[in-house]
């Protein structure tokens, strides 16, 4: 069916590890070359840590699957170095329409906030997203990506892991300190270890059809509640790259997935929706059900679960791949520093606690959207329908209409890694992710986020500090860079507005661009203590 994209086939290459007399040891092995597995390897490489990825297949995602990538995900990809092709290929949209029964209820325009390098979100087929990551990995000497390498046996112990890996040249042994698992929602490694991901199965089926339109169609997101052409169900239409349109039909629990996937059954549905005269070609189709669930603990011995294997959400609100990549970015800098002996081994536990919080928020949001789209009983449907009717005439009701909320990065305001200094009012709060702003350095245009990440940064306005204080602050750690805010020109005044750095004020920014601490009057003792805390050393004391 697929015409606009042909999956690249990546060659299996024999590794010298396969001829070794005994199991070759690697600090980090990653299972699964999907968005999360590859993000983990790229992020670790940014922190100077080598890794091996094993994938049992030899290509990127077959069919489109995830399509909406949020600004935060793109900012992470930009830190790795692959956001540009994604944004160039992806579709940026901001307009949408909501329909109820036979009429349009309202339309919206998500005017993006200005002064950010990357758009609020893009629509892009998952295979492109993955392909651009593979292209970057191919140039990265710290990543060894092995296609057609299948993990067949895992012995997980408290101090490391022994692996048996199957290839066309036979089975070979590997060992690693940490095994990062991103083998998907139905993780075989998770079940093999007797671990569970628990939550709610939604008793509903959805048909996804990606179609290529022959005629022009506006770049808008259209959502129908209970339309005439598909009674009592919902339908979503939006655009991806290559003029491919994603259509998502809610089918109900009784639908037969095998029947619904057949082209002769899909065509009439789309014709009823678009009209018989609209020409289109079917690109790819799939029927899915979904679950919102997570593991109680993402860490088992030295096996760390990521992505859908760790936490899974419904597709509404685009929080699967986005939430997954955000979990990976939380993990990578911590693991790299634990392996280098620069952080407490207990820092790993904060990956679990911070991202349990992230997953809970994502599951909450996507469950709320699902409950609005699919009312659970008669009175819920009454409220839903009347909300939609009121929304046509009264703007307030539009805020209740929920066909998926935009994925926003969660905050870690209650994280044990934070240090709070109540003296610095205004600006961004501790536990929140840094916001971008246009800046100039030595007269050259740049972005604030490009200055942050991969190491700790102290963003400081030294106006009221002693002359040698900056030098002393810079000497705290090799992993800390001090940036004097006066060297950042602020042509639009947005950096000043967003960060409110008065004389003496400073932010301590983690390698994942989250704010670990704020200081009213930056000094060596407070900054050192905050950095130790962010590296998990206070967790040892707490034990």
């Amino acid at each position, binding site marked *: 069916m697929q015409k606009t994209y042909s999956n690249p086939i990546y060659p299996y290459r024999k590794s010298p590890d396969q001829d070794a007399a005994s199991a070759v040891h690697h600090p980090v092995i990653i299972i699964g070359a999907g968005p999360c597995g590859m993000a983990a390897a790229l992020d670790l490489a940014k922190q100077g840590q080598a890794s091996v990825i094993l994938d049992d297949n030899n290509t990127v995602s077959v069919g489109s699957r995830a399509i909406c990538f949020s600004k935060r995900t793109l900012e992470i990809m930009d830190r790795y170095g692959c956001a540009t092709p994604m944004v160039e290929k992806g579709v940026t949209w901001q307009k949408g329409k909501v329909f109820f029964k036979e009429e349009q209820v309202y339309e919206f325009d998500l005017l993006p906030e200005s002064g950010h390098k990357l758009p609020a979100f893009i629509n892009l087929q998952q295979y492109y997203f993955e392909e651009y990551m593979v292209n970057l990995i191919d140039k990265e000497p710290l990543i060894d990506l092995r296609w057609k390498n299948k993990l067949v046996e895992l012995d997980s112990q408290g101090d490391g892991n022994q692996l048996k890996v199957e290839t066309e040249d036979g089975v070979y042994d590997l060992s690693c300190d940490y095994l990062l698992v991103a083998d998907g929602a139905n993780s075989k490694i998770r079940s093999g270890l007797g671990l569970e991901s628990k939550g709610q199965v939604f008793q509903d089926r959805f048909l996804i059809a990606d179609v290529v339109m022959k005629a022009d169609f506006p770049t808008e997101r259209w959502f129908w509640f209970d339309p005439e052409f598909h009674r009592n169900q919902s339908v979503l239409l939006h655009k991806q790259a290559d003029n491919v349109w994603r259509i998502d039909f809610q089918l109900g629990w009784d639908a037969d997935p095998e029947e619904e996937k057949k082209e002769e059954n899909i065509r009439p549905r789309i014709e009823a929706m678009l009209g018989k005269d609209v020409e289109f070609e079917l690109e790819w189709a799939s029927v899915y059900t979904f679950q919102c669930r997570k593991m109680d603990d993402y860490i088992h011995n030295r096996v760390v679960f990521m992505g859908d294997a760790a936490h899974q959400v419904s597709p509404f609100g685009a929080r699967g791949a986005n939430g997954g990549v955000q979990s990976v970015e939380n993990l990578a800098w911590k693991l790299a520093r634990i392996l280098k002996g620069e952080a407490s081994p207990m820092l790993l536990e904060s990956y679990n606690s911070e991202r349990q919080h992230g997953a809970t928020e994502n599951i909450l949001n996507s469950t709320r959207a699902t409950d609005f789209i699919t009312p659970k009983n008669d009175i819920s449907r009454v409220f839903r329908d009347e909300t939609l009717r009121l929304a046509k005439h009264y703007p*307030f009701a539009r805020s209740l209409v929920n066909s998926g909320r935009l994925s926003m990065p969660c905050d870690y305001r209650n994280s044990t890694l934070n240090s709070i200094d109540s003296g610095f009012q205004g600006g961004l709060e501790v536990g929140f992710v840094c916001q971008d702003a246009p800046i100039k350095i030595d007269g050259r245009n740049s972005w604030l986020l490009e200055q942050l990440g991969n190491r700790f940064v102290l963003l400081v306005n030294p106006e009221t500090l002693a002359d040698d204080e900056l030098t002393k602050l810079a000497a705290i750690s090799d992993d800390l860079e001090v940036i004097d805010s006066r060297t950042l020109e602020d042509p639009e005044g947005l950096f000043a507005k967003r960060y409110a750095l008065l004389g003496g004020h400073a932010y301590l920014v983690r390698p994942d661009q989250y704010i670990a601490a704020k200081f009213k009057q930056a000094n060596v003792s407070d900054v050192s203590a905050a950095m130790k805390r962010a590296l998990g050393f206070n967790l040892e004391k707490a034990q």
Partner: protein
Amino acid sequence: MSKLITDNHFSDADAFYASLTDAHRELTPEDSERLNARLILLLANHIGDKQVLFEALDIAAQLEQ
């Protein structure tokens, strides 16, 4: 601290009550349900404050009281 007003706050309690029951008088139970839903949504937005709304929901849910 409770924020929901539970003492009389109506400018004309009798008139409101009469209008409420009048609005439902000719309606089927299904349409009454719709009207109630619309009324709740409109008033909830007017109140807006999360704490007030949750306190009201909490009292309303105590069906045995």
